[in-house]
């Protein structure tokens, strides 16, 4: 129980976010209106994705240093769950964009950048699928993982700054960070970031333990 307190915290926070996120008062802003509640669900997805992909890269580097099955499995599963968060982020973002910007896809630099980022990690899984031998698959996909992450970082953070984005906080649009998000919204937003990220780590934890056990079982079955 002592080790699992953070899982309890995650569940409690998520319940709080879903209740407070839908029922609390939010500032009345033009265009955004009630859709501002998407901040509690859409934005934390990107935080979760970035963190999980970071974990994936860290374990890819660890794999290249000490090639163990555990490092490879954690790296892969983190990429998989990061990709899931990314897809959820893009879906929640597209639904929101339809309401506020008028189109599902508005050629916004951040939208494009995240789509490219997702393509990159889909390619990672295709690459993994094309090796039969486990060690070669692990090593070469770790190399691509690091390479892709190094290319993704300038993409996500530098490119949107060069052209105007429709996103709140860019190109003269009102941002949530400075003056629009009142203290009541922050009371939900910060816990939301923490809770969704923790949920991602939790899924990663369960999934990679499961995969490691599965591998061990296969080994015993053959031996």
């Amino acid at each position: 129980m002592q080790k699992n307190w953070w899982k309890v915290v995650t569940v409690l926070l998520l319940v709080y976010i879903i209740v407070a996120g839908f029922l609390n008062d939010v500032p009345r802003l033009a265009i955004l209106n009630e859709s501002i509640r998407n901040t509690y669900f859409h934005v934390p997805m990107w935080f979760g994705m970035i963190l999980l992909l970071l974990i994936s890269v860290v374990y890819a580097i660890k794999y290249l240093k000490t090639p163990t099955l555990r490092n490879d499995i954690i790296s892969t599963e983190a990429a998989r769950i990061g990709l899931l968060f990314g897809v959820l982020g893009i879906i929640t973002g597209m639904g929101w964009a339809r309401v506020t910007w008028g189109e599902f896809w508005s050629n916004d630099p951040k939208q494009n950048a995240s789509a490219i980022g997702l393509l990159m990690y889909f390619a990672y899984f295709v690459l993994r699928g094309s090796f039969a031998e486990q060690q070669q698959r692990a090593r070469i996909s770790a190399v691509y993982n690091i390479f892709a992450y190094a290319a993704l970082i300038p993409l996500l953070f530098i490119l949107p700054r060069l052209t105007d984005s429709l996103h709140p906080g860019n190109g003269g649009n009102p941002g949530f960070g400075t003056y629009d998000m009142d203290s009541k919204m922050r009371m939900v937003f910060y816990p939301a970031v923490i809770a969704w990220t923790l949920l991602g780590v939790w899924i990663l934890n369960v999934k990679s333990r499961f995969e490691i056990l599965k591998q061990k079982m296969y080994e015993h079955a053959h031996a």
Partner: protein
Amino acid sequence: MRQTTKVLLREVLYLMQKDFVLEWRQKYAFNGMLLYVGSTVFICYLSFGLRGGTLGVPVWNALFWIILLFTSVNAIAKSFMQENKGRLLYLYTLVSPQGVILAKIAYNTCLMLILALLCYLFYAVVIGNPVQDDAMFLATILLGAVGFSTSLTMISGIAAKASNSSTLMAILSFPVIIPMLLMLMKMSKNAIDGLDRAASTDELTTLLAINAIVVTVSYILFPYLWRN
């Protein structure tokens, strides 16, 4: 430290020389690339039904870079696939992996530069040439050749290890290369319109930064890829 740098430099020069000699002896590969560029440009000309320079500037620009992108993916894809296993093993005993990747990047840059210039020449003759700031446009082509070859060389090393390498080459490289391509297109659009050169400094520095990152990461990661 200085000693190792000197050895590395000698290795790079030697390996580049090897690649040039190989290319010269098997001219069919290079001629194939030239024909590829030529026919692609001609197909574009025919499919747009052009009679000399009636293409709008944005379309001209996009088409040019897309042709160049596919040419470079095809040209660079073979840089590790053409090496047979025996020769790789032989190289493995002689030189450092860093030497191999740097030599391949430098060699591919030269190759891409030649191909890109010839592509531009042919494209301009067949489809027309709206470029106003020639020096800036050539600088953009130079940057494009360097950028494409740096990122594609590493990707071709990764793809060559897998079974379905030609498909992998395309899907692995496109996401990595898109940011570069967008910057290049913006820069070349500025050059075509003859805008003030200060307008392109942002793109220029970003491109140089991306190139620096990609070369550094390739330099660090290639030894892991090569060890087999």
